[in-house]
């Protein structure tokens, strides 16, 4: 049960990130999870939003370079060791993680970690086989 992540190409220019958030604000889109991967020259902004389609169309209209990617959002306990357990499962099955970032969910005592997996199907199987719960709605 994967969810859609929006990636936005950002040159390292002042104000570029502000432009993105402004476009999303004007389209009344709520950002649920956000992360930036940066290199010396450019950044890749990764977003999970409540309305992906509307967000993509608003961003493209504003001439941003975007891409939709399948990721999985796993709900874990907000206590020490919870992430370690998930990582151990992936490690044992040799599921490579391209990147991950965390999001705050409303539920008390819970956290959501977003994974971009090299082999999505295999990852999903491990998650379901081990009774981990996934978030599919933001």
């Amino acid at each position, binding site marked *: 049960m994967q969810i859609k992540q929006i990636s936005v*190409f950002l*040159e390292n220019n002042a104000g570029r990130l502000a432009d993105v958030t402004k476009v999303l604000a004007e389209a009344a889109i709520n950002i649920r999870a956000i992360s930036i991967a940066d290199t010396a020259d*450019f950044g890749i902004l990764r977003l999970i939003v409540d309305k992906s389609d509307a967000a993509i169309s608003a961003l493209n209209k504003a001439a941003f370079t975007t891409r939709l990617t399948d990721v999985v959002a796993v709900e874990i306990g907000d206590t020490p060791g919870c992430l370690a357990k998930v990582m151990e499962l992936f490690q044992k099955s040799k599921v490579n993680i391209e990147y991950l970032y965390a999001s705050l969910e409303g539920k008390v005592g819970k956290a959501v970690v977003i994974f971009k997996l090299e082999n999505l199907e295999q990852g999903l199987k491990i998650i379901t086989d081990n009774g981990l719960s996934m978030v599919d709605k933001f």
Partner: protein
Amino acid sequence: MIFNPEHECMSTEARKKLQLANLKNLVEKLYTDVPFYRKKMDALGITSRDIHTLEDIEKLPFTTKDDLRENYPRGMLACPKDRIVEVHMSSGTTGKPVVDEYTQKDIDIWREAMARTLAGGGCTKDDIVQNCYGYGLFTGGPGAHYGAMNIGAEVLPMSSGNTARQLMVMQDFGTTMLTCTPSYALYMAEEAAEAGVDLKTLPLNKGCFGAEPWSENMRKEIEARYGMKAYDIYGLTEIIGPGVAFECEAQEGLHVNEDLFYPEIINPETGKHVPRGEKGELVFTTLTKEGTPLLRYRTRDITYFMDEPCSCGRTTVRMHRLFGRTDDMLIIRGVNVFPSQIEHALFGIEGTEPQYLIVVNRGDTHLDEVELQVEVKQEFFSDETKKLEALRTKIEGVMKSKLQIGLKVKLVEPKTIERSIGKAKRVIDNRKI
């Protein structure tokens, strides 16, 4: 030291007489032996009989780089092939290379021109010349080599690169004169500083630098770091290689070897001579060459003539150090680069738009630093940095192999490089030459 006082200190009148006689011979020879020139002269209705004074050179046709490319490989040859003893050519990165074929007499002319050039920088038979211009088809290495040998100096034919070994040889053999591109000279100075070698304590006290534009400040920097005198030299494959013009100890403009290479300055738009002392495009006619002589070759280099007598005693005309070029060619670390080459290379790389911007800076290291901004195709954009990094590395690799220089590639968003309706602005050159 003046290598050839008879020719370098000639009276203007005597020189003009010599130039005119040689020009007439050249025109006659080109008409007879080179169909390319015969066609051009027939089209203008000109023969050698129309050349009565040096000013009549304006009646003759120009030669351009495109002409030379179209006549690759041997269409410009003006003598039987078996008289050719050596060939040099440009890298040909922008298309067909430009070829210079030398008879033994041409090599002798080159030896003479380069001996005058190195002597202008103080070279004598007692010098040990470390020649770090590249050897090969490039004219730099062999040109300086021949010149130094003609003077009777000792030559260390190092070619460029392997800086650690350059420094070792410099110290162990007591190099007294350095010949290389000015940016390589500075690069070596930095490496020397890092290795704890104090260049100022070495016997090295002079150098002749060329093959790329450089500034007065760069000269001061080289002179300070080495504790030497640094001289500017000028030349181009089309004419003979290095040795066309050189600075003397006065360091005020470059003396043109004008008994060998007849210089003109024209308005690049109209093709007409500009008033003496005004800036324009430099044009050369090879008065005495046999292999591939050229009539009125348009160099695209911008300069002006300085007629005032020079304190060194030479009577040859001087040209100011170059101001730039009439075309969009960039000289990056001594390598000629046209923006069109970059465009051509980009077309072959998946994931990029043929939209680019070249930003050239001369950094703290005094080496040219080139940033190539390239637009990433929308479809190629990835959520993973490694894929974009791989694209960048790939572009850098392609550019390195096609242009022979290292560029730093910066990926930018699609549609962000400014589009223009006429001629696109592809280059921002921030170098202060």
